[in-house]
């Protein structure tokens, strides 16, 4: 059991008042709040260990390097990577996916081959592959969705074929909350010899994810969606693939030997970490991982499953409100997306904000999917470990206010 009241106390921002009411933070799919432990680790990094990494022979630089690499080890353990070298520090999920698209995609796909994504992709796992498709003249295939917002795998054998080079799919959708059946898709991809890349931005923060068990080749996620600062993201890649991969960015640190005419590359993961990295925020990510591990990712998932079940039950009581995405909590992360008849999400967002309730309104970086639904925008309440039933009750009360305004 998770003690939510004691968890809430770890997050200073949850004491914030907006219009004389406490902040009810329900925008966790966009970014999460930080516990004291993470905030203090950042302060401590600046106060005691601020120095460039992998360079100095002096004490502070060595300490900074040690902390930086210890955080990498924590990330590797958290997702069960075989080795710390499989963990590449990047800025965010978008950069991780661009690294795969540029370094792997542009060099491994030709015009007779294809890339497979899904209709539920965030722009970050769609636009980079559109770019690769245009550059290489290869086909970009898209797994469709059912009206319920789950993937329609009925034509999977026609989409993932012998000519498919990579299947790059979102694990949990930030649009519908759908937990996609990645095991089944990965199995299919492996059977035709395709590589698999997983956008795990909404899964690694919210449920146990084991890269060896799912057997993906690449996996990407962001620190800021899991209690850590916004400047650190992770690309996981299998050792044998990263070793063969061309660099993405070139310059300092990523090289072994440089002459005026040529250069050789450093070992992984340094080959992909050109220039001075963000050597502060990974420390925060390591502490965030400690925090989540102490609670247990199974518990985090169970808590969010309870919350989404309650939220879907309560939201459907509201007349005119339509839930976007699957209604079975087993198939859904803690993301409650909805639309309201004639009331635009931005009006909903503004009215809820007056009651201190923070939700996301708009297309959530999923324009094509909204277009498919015939909606220009939706409202989204998304949960994390510090949310409780009371927060959802406040959301529902706020929605009744919205209706009173527009009736």
């Amino acid at each position, binding site marked *: 059991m998770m003690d939510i009241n004691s968890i809430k106390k770890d997050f200073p921002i949850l004491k914030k008042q907006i219009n004389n009411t406490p902040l009810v933070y329900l925008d966790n799919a966009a970014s999460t709040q930080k516990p004291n432990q993470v905030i203090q680790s950042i302060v401590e990094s600046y106060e005691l260990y601020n120095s460039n990494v992998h360079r100095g022979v002096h004490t502070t630089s060595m300490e900074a390097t040690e902390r930086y690499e210890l955080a990498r080890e924590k990330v590797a353990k958290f997702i069960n990577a075989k080795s710390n070298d499989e963990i590449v520090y990047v800025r965010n999920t978008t950069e991780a996916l661009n690294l795969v698209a540029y370094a792997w995609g542009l060099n491994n796909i030709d015009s007779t081959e294809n890339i497979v994504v899904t209709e539920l992709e965030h722009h970050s796992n769609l636009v980079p592959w559109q770019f690769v498709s245009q550059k290489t003249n290869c086909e970009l295939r898209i797994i469709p969705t059912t009206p319920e917002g789950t993937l329609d795998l009925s034509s999977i054998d026609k989409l993932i074929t012998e000519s498919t080079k990579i299947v790059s799919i979102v694990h949990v959708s930030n649009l519908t909350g759908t937990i996609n059946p990645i095991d089944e898709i990965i199995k299919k991809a492996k059977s035709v010899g395709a590589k698999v890349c997983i956008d795990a931005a909404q899964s690694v923060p919210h449920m146990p994810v084991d890269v060896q068990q799912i057997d993906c080749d690449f996996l990407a996620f962001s620190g800021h969606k899991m209690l850590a600062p916004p400047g650190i993201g992770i690309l996981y890649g299998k050792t044998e693939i990263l070793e063969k991969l061309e660099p993405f960015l070139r310059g300092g640190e990523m090289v072994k030997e440089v002459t005026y005419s040529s250069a050789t590359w450093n070992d992984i993961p340094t080959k992909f970490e050109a220039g001075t990295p963000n050597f502060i925020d990974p420390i925060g990510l390591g502490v965030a991982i400690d925090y989540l591990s102490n609670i247990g990712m199974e518990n985090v998932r169970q808590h969010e499953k309870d919350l989404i079940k309650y939220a879907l039950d309560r939201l459907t009581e509201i007349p005119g409100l339509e839930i976007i995405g699957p209604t079975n909590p087993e198939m859904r992360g803690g993301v409650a997306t909805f639309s309201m008849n004639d*009331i*635009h*999400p*931005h*009006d909903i967002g503004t009215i809820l904000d*007056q009651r201190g309730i923070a939700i996301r309104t708009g297309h959530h970086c999923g324009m094509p999917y*909204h277009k498919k639904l015939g909606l*220009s*925008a939706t409202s989204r309440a998304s949960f994390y470990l510090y949310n409780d039933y009371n927060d959802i009750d406040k959301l529902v009360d706020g929605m009744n206010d919205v209706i009173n*305004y527009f009736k």
Partner: protein
Amino acid sequence: MLPNELNDLYKEVILDHYKNPRNSSEIIEPLHKARGYNPFCGDEVNLQLNVDNNQVIQEVGFQGHGCAISQATASLMTESIKGKSIQEALAIREEFRKMMQGEQSNLELLQDLEILEGVRNFPVRIKCSLLSWSTLEDSLS
């Protein structure tokens, strides 16, 4: 109970214009037209204008979808510029912009548009209110 600021934003007149937009019939083959789109929120305004030989706006039509503020502003705008010269319409636009930015504005020119003054207390919503005005400018350029 809702805070007063919200009451200033969602005034009855504004909600009425949102639910019953004025000048919403499309003008076929207009002299001037433009589409305004805000990718951030998906607000859209399609505007058509016909002016006479004296550059006076004789007909105006708009169709769109989006939040109450964007659509009500478009409706109120069409009412305020109908029968005005292009020059006068652009002058009203300038006064509206000033009102949104909290500058001194000419209320005689703005007339009914003053009702939208409450929008400026919601900085992220100001762009909703400016969409139809930039569409007006685009249609005339």
